[in-house]
């Protein structure tokens, strides 16, 4: 316990330095900004800012990038409630009752309960993360290459299972991601693979241009093709503080959403989107008046908004405890850790307590900042919603260009980003989800190493993956998930429909 308290206070000492407070604020501010704006998400924003963090120390970098992730969940609800367009995919469900409340002149309490629910869930989520990550990393130290291989296979399988729409397409995306990760120099033999004589490809394709292309450029192109400008919100927002009745209606939903969201957030691919939908379904089931859902029920806003925030804390568990990212944003954070010379994995918490505890402590502070940014300063974001998309999109494209260029000061990366932007646009059109590709791209080299090392240990026997208990259980679960997708097709269709 003493060690825990020492680490906890170390975390706050780090987070409370002037520079880290500044980076935390920048992170949550940009997070709220991209959350409010429907055209760009946290993955795009993080990849955009990743090159900017090269010059700062790793703790500050992770504090800022993490802030973007959980900040986006706060901001996303504002757009959902006020203009009925989800700022983030995880706030789609908030539109259902949030916008109805807005139409009834209750936008204030809807925004208020979304912010308070997010704050409570975000804070509780961090507490659970704090208590779970360290013991889990202690267990993970005993993992060898076969265990890692199986866990990564499990992560990819669950991600493809939870993907929207066709699971076959999601699996294709995952294998495409693994294939792309093979481009460049083989670290064992030093032989170059699939570079076609292009020197820039010898170090492999960069993660940032791929993510910026697939999530940033592709999103802009899709938006340009599909829609005109956002509908401007004209009414004045008043009474942001929910009344006693609102609190009584919401508190159960907030508590349920918090725990549900956190544990669904740990699952690969589960994250904020699924948890918000599940929370809405649970609240409707628990409610004495399910017929009120969809007509402006405050618990329909409180539950999902709490769930998507605590899910973001849950998603940090596999990253910090195992070094395995559970979604595209976590994959980027993993990339950020590696760029800063850190080795993500179970030893990270022990070897670099400043990174883990500093980030945890900054998340408490970040949540307080977000509460202030999203309640008293809500007017600022409402004003932002009035900026037409035709003005915003050239700026988003420009920031993508700068971000991609500044990684290596090379136009080759910009070209890669543009190519993946066009590919990503086509993926969206033909209903292929890019998230499994990104995760597989990140996991590809790790997957290859652990497979090669396992086979070296076992002298070529594949049984090593089944005879070691954790690895065996991981692979069996992955197999069950695959089989269940065939037998529970209907269930998958429901998830797809909800998403």
């Amino acid at each position, binding site marked *: 316990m003493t060690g825990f308290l020492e680490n906890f206070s170390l975390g706050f000492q780090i987070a409370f330095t002037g520079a880290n407070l500044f980076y935390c604020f920048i992170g949550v501010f940009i997070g709220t900004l991209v959350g409010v704006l429907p055209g760009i998400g946290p993955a795009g924003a993080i990849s955009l800012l990743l090159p900017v963090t090269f010059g700062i120390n790793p703790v500050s970098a992770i504090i800022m990038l993490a802030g973007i992730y959980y900040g986006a969940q706060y901001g996303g609800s504002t757009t959902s409630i006020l203009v009925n367009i989800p700022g983030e995919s995880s706030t789609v469900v908030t539109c259902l009752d949030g916008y109805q409340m807005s139409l009834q002149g209750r936008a204030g309490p809807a925004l208020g309960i979304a912010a308070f629910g997010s704050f409570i869930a975000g804070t509780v989520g961090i507490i659970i993360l704090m208590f779970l990550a360290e013991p889990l990393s202690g267990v993970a130290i005993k993992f060898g290459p076969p265990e890692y291989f199986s866990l990564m296979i499990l992560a990819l399988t669950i991600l493809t299972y939870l993907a929207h729409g066709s699971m076959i397409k999601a699996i294709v995306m995952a294998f495409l991601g693994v294939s792309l990760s093979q481009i460049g120099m083989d670290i064992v033999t030093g032989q170059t693979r699939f570079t076609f004589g292009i020197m820039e490809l010898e170090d492999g394709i960069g993660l940032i241009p791929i993510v910026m292309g697939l999530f940033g450029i592709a999103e802009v192109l899709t938006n340009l093709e599909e829609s005109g400008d956002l509908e401007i919100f004209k009414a004045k927002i008043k009474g942001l503080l929910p009344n006693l009745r609102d609190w009584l209606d919401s508190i159960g939903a907030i508590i349920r959403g918090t725990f549900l969201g956190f544990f669904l957030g740990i699952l690969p691919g589960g994250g904020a989107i699924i948890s918000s939908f599940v929370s809405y379904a649970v609240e409707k089931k628990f409610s004495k008046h399910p017929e009120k859902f969809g007509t402006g029920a405050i618990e329909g806003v409180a539950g999902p908004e709490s769930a998507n925030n605590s899910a973001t804390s849950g998603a940090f568990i596999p990253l910090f405890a195992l070094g395995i990212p559970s979604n595209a944003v976590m994959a980027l954070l993993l990339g950020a850790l590696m760029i800063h010379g850190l080795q993500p994995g179970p030893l990270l918490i022990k070897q670099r307590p400043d990174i883990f505890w500093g980030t945890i402590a900054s998340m408490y502070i970040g949540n307080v900042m977000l509460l202030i940014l999203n309640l008293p300063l809500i007017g600022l974001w409402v004003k932002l919603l009035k900026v037409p998309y035709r003005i915003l999109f*050239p700026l988003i494209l420009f920031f993508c260009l700068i971000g991609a260029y500044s990684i290596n000061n090379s136009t080759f990366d910009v070209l890669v980003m543009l190519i993946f932007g066009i590919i990503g646009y086509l993926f969206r059109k033909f209903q292929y989800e890019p998230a499994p590709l990104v995760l597989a791209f990140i996991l590809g080299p790790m997957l290859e190493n652990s497979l090669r090392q396992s086979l070296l240990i076992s002298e070529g026997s594949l049984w090593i993956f089944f005879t070691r208990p954790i690895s065996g259980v991981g692979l069996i679960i992955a197999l069950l998930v695959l089989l269940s997708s065939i037998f529970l097709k209907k269930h998958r269709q429901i998830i797809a429909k909800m998403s």
Partner: protein
Amino acid sequence: MKKYDRVGGLIWTILGILLCIGSVQLRLGNFNKPGPGFIPFLSGAFLILFGLILTLVTFLKESGEEEKTRNEKIWVKENWKRIFYPLFALFGYILLLDHVGFLITTFLFLFFLFKLTVPKRWTMPLILSGGTVVLSYLIFSVWLKCQFPKGILNF
């Protein structure tokens, strides 16, 4: 979507075949000592397998009225125009950046896109693009010390 899935499945299959051929050339190794082509070969093989499944599944599905309308909606000529110009601008930016320099290329890129959205006015696109160039130069080049091509202006 059925038609597109069929073509998509075939594309993945062909890509998988090419990947397998490339992997064999790299040297596959064996289970005792996997070579550099081992994992790419496995990825290629799975791409072939799932590409074929994707194609085959389309033959098993019955096409409904809904499918037909969806197919029609995928490509709308008018919508194409909206993304063609930004793509043109992006390609232009990549081509010009190293030769002409950051300041001029960025200004031209932004001005082109802003002008496209407000065709009748000149002052607003000029102010917006000029302002963004100056601000981004101060933030990225002066403050964050990012290195951008100087080009013909030499700064």
